[in-house]
């Protein structure tokens, strides 16, 4: 949400050296009146929402994965149970049933897993808007273990935000201008 607002004003980007001051800054920003929707954190290592004191992030990945599994299972069911009857020359193998359960289970399992894993992969792309080669708010120091807090809040004075972030130990504060990664 903060990213879409950033098109109107660049906002503020503060770089912190450690996790604790970052979490502290988020808490103090909230007290200043900056809502969670108006800020986000960029880090080079996964830190949970609980560590940062941020609300849980919504992710569609598990749902899409489940959808993919259902799709894969349906495709396998079609191939195993329906398609064979469409053909005028069915292949009878020994005394096995025309659609025997044990091999069918193998087909159902493999295609269900394939559907689930493919859709999980796809879900990361969809949820994260990958690939995205447009300019974005970012600082390369994040790769070196720094934490960037990006604040874009119209109803709180930018100077107040900057002062607060400086007081809380931000290593650098600059306009959160979008740049080519």
């Amino acid at each position, binding site marked *: 949400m903060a990213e879409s607002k950033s098109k109107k004003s660049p906002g503020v980007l503060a770089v912190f050296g450690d996790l604790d001051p970052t979490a502290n800054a988020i808490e103090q920003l909230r007290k200043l009146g900056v809502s969670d929707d108006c800020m986000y954190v960029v880090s080079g290592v*996964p830190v949970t929402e609980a560590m940062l004191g941020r609300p849980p*992030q919504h992710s569609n990945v598990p749902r899409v994965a489940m959808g993919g599994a259902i799709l894969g299972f349906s495709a396998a069911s079609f191939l195993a149970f329906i398609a064979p009857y469409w053909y005028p020359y069915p292949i009878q193998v020994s005394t096995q049933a025309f659609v025997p359960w044990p091999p069918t289970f*193998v087909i159902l399992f*493999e295609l269900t897993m394939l559907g689930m894993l493919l859709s999980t992969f796809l879900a*990361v792309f969809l949820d994260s808007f990958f690939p995205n080669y447009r300019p974005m708010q970012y600082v390369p120091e994040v790769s070196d273990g720094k934490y960037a807090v990006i604040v874009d809040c119209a109803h709180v004075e930018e100077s107040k935000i900057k002062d607060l972030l400086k007081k809380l130990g931000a290593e650098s504060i600059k306009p959160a201008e979008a740049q080519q*990664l």
Partner: protein
Amino acid sequence: MAYGKKETEKKQEHHEHHGHTEEHFKEKHLMLDPLPRGVMNDMVMEAVTEKPSWKWWATVIFMGATVAYCLVYSWYVLIAEGVGVAGVNRPSYWGIFLVNTVFWIGISHAGTFISAILRVFRAEFRRPFTRVAELMTTFGLVQAGFSIFMHMGRVWLAYWLMPYPNQRMLWPNFHSPLSWDLLAITTYLLSSTMYLFLPLIPDLAMARDKTTGWRKNFYRILALGFRGTEGEWTHLRNAMNIFAFAIIPVMFSVHTIVSWDFAAAMRPGWNSTIFGPYFVIGALHSGMGAAVVVLAAVRKFIKNMDYFIRAEHFDAIGKLMLIISMGWAYFFFNDYMVQWYGGDKWTKQLLHFHEAGPLGWMWFLMLIVNIAIPWAILWNPKWRSTPWLVSIVGILINVGMWLERYIIIPISLTINRMPFTWRQYTPGIEIPLGIGTLVLFILLYVIFAKLIPMIPVWEVQEGQMAHQLKKFGRETVVQVSELE
């Protein structure tokens, strides 16, 4: 006064001892020896971006030429002349191509084992070498795919395996284990490649931030615009958890299905209900053996890797290798015992042929290198922590596991229920083609080591954040917090 002095000395000694213990822990454990993230990034990127030496170029040219001759040209000959140039003939219609297929699928199991199973069980030592192992899965499956296409002969008709409405209105036969193979191997190849790529994205973003020129563009495209926002990490973490849990049954299914190619046939030596788990444990045996060799090579030949890959990692893999070797021995003996006890005339003949036939040396060598040597060396913590020694064991295990597949396929096919057809298999063009797949596997590692960060730096940093030393009474112990 004297008492006080003694106490002070004692305290000093204790502090020195404590300091010494901390140093010892740091030296031993990567997770307790953190460096600033930027320094670790620079170390990894230096290894990737450093100008290749003439030795690197010579290696790549030599391997490229070998691949061109052994794989490309020999495959051309196989296609142009037909499968007659291979050694397969009655009764051994399956030869080295399928030995290599099974072998490479086995190798591919190490990646999933290390990356997924150890991730699920939160085995912290896995962190620096998950990528090296994941690459093994993808590269191994590529060689397995090549080998099975070679076996097909008329490779351009491979699409016949796909279920589609063909002109004779025949439905591809899902009753055949070979069609299950197609599905299982395709699923595994796609899944393992995606599983390799997902944790690579943050490191590609790091590489993008650290490079210039064509490399920056290369990493920029592959990093997909990853910045490390909370949302991106959450989606990535969710996806990696799903992959870690879901790819494990897929891995088990792949080698089980490969085993059914044999076990579903009513042949002496093949028709065994234990072949599924026996193949899976065999795959892990060769896979872990190969993983330790690759790890030792990465540590030896790639700059700065001795910081990330330490004796503790060889020790941990060595323990796993020992346990897996015991598991393999158990399944081997179980299979052998039941076949031997059954008393079937042809099975007895086959078992006798395995041990006392012209290639009986393979059977004994297999047992020596798969059981005796690993057990003799890997029980000792000092020996199994020695990279060169444990990688020799890894190479020997792979020789043993390749022989095991050779015994199961062409040697076992020699003996059947029609003695007038008995004939020993002699490989032809399979040999250069097999060498070609091996060299291509190594070449892919050599090239990729110059293209992508071989160490998942963010995973290492995450692990280092979770580890600390804590004192319980007088004992200093390692404490791990669950951050994920």
